[in-house]
């Protein structure tokens, strides 16, 4: 496969993630986009096209939200498009930018992802209710947690994983999030396992402190061709591989114990990046973790551990930020520790890999040497995986 351009990430910016932002979606987008441009040392005049990502219109409560946000995302008078794969949108927005630039048509692309979940009343669950089948499931009063609780329980049963394991994931990520300047108030923190296990049951076995919160926020990336990136002062981070894959959107037709579509997306990205042994070649990971069990699920799907073996590695500290022999997972704090403005949280994960590879993650910088990392998004109707391998 030939691509015209090698593609680099050269800047990233995030707003703070909050429960209810004063800023409009456009203002959030502007704040993140400006921060990313400043991070790259560029201005809007250097940007040739813009990719916008958002998971859903009903949260912000604006129909055709991509068009509404456009001028705050820097899309004024430029080729502009939205990419939408629900929770997978953030990582997909980098992939979309990748093909804009890899094609040779553009040298620079600004990626902006924004989500404002707080306008939806009484709860964003009302919008999630409408992703289910009108006749088969919605009459039951289904909410989004049903699918996660069914999936988590299948995963637990398949491998005999105790609840404490999932509490450890939440504990790790919420501790990591304490060092993230974008972290949503009260989401990050030093929780005991007992506090997490004692938090209220949402839909068993999913407990309150194992779920990411409702969040408002935005994130942005600057993506360029190799020739453009070489002119900038900082060493670029390369988009070495991209992959994405969809399973059936009907939950009864999926293997809930294993996300095969994540594996397919990962294999696609690894193959493009020329990786033969991801456990050796990936040095830091940001798997999608809107729920504690999803981090483990996704680490398996990303082929970073054998099926059912992630919990054992977790006990050994293999996924900890300060590991010297393992693969730090969600050093950012992830969605559990920073917050989950859906599309923006995927960009937050890419930004984390970008900063980790440039050695600019500050208090979150992992201890081991890192030359390559993977960021993964997940969501849509809980059946999509988006994967990006970044390297320096």
């Amino acid at each position, binding site marked *: 496969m030939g691509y015209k351009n090698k593609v680099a990430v050269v800047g990233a910016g995030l707003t703070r993630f909050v429960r*209810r*932002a*004063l*800023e*409009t979606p*456009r*203002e959030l987008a*502007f704040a993140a*986009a*400006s921060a990313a*441009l400043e991070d790259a040392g560029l*201005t*809007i005049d250097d940007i040739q096209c813009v990719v916008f990502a958002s998971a859903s219109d*009903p949260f912000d*409560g604006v129909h055709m939200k991509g068009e509404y946000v456009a*001028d*705050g995302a*820097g899309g*004024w*008078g430029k080729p502009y498009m939205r990419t939408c794969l629900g929770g997978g949108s953030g990582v997909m927005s980098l992939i979309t930018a990748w093909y804009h630039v890899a094609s040779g048509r553009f040298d620079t692309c600004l990626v902006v992802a924004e989500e404002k979940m*707080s*306008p*939806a*009343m*009484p*709860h*964003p669950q*009302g*919008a999630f*209710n*409408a992703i289910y089948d*009108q*006749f088969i499931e*919605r009459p039951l009063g289904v909410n989004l947690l049903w699918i996660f609780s069914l999936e988590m329980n299948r995963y637990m049963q398949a491998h005999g994983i105790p609840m404490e394991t999932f509490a450890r994931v939440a504990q790790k990520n919420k501790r990591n999030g304490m060092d993230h300047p974008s972290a949503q108030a009260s989401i990050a923190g030093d929780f005991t396992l007992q506090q997490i296990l004692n938090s209220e049951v949402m839909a068993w076995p999913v407990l309150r402190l194992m779920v990411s919160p409702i969040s408002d926020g935005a994130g942005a990336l600057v993506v360029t061709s190799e020739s453009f990136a070489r002119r900038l002062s900082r060493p670029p981070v390369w988009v070495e591989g991209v992959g994405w894959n969809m399973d059936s959107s009907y939950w009864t037709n999926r293997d809930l114990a294993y996300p095969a579509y994540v594996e397919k997306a990962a294999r696609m990205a690894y193959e493009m990046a020329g990786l033969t042994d991801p456990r050796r070649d990936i040095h830091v990971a940001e798997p999608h973790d809107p729920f504690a069990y999803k981090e483990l699920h996704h680490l398996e799907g990303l082929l970073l551990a054998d099926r059912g073996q992630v919990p054992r590695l977790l006990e050994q500290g293999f996924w900890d930020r300060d590991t010297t022999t393992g693969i730090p997972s969600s050093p950012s704090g992830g969605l559990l520790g920073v917050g989950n403005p859906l599309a923006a949280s995927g960009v937050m994960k890419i930004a984390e890999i970008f900063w980790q590879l440039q050695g600019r993650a500050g208090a979150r910088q992992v201890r081991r040497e890192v030359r390559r990392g993977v960021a993964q998004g997940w969501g849509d109707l809980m059946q999509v995986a988006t994967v990006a391998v970044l390297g320096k």
Partner: protein
Amino acid sequence: MLRPEQKQDLPVLRQVQGEIPISHRYTLGVAGERFFKAMRDQRQLLASPCPKCRDLLLPPKAYCPRCFVATAEAWSPLTGPGFVRGFTVVHRDLDELPLAAPEIVALIGWPEVRGGLVHRLQEVEPQQVALGMAVEPVWATQRTGCLADILHFRPAANH
């Protein structure tokens, strides 16, 4: 097999009532808070200046979409009348039901600003409206900081 004309026939086609069960509460935003407060407290329309292109933006924004920089801190109240840049006469409501009386809706600009406002135009007959007509806001007595603080626009007194 249904004939095409039967497809709207409710007794033939069983249907299920449904909705997306949410409503919305929108924050006004950084720029909106200031804009609507000035309408409520000062009966003023504020425009925000871009420090780069020097344009005054209406409705005011926290950033200039063209230059992509934050707008300046000092906002300017509009002083003179606005001018009709376009108008329509609306005969049907949101549900396509006939209005009791047709309503004039105008796109109103001010010479010093980029942008403008769309609002109802009253105290004038549709036949009398012309492009370039000078108009002024009619303020509500009880104002809450929303678009309805302006009841409508009308032809400006001294033009």
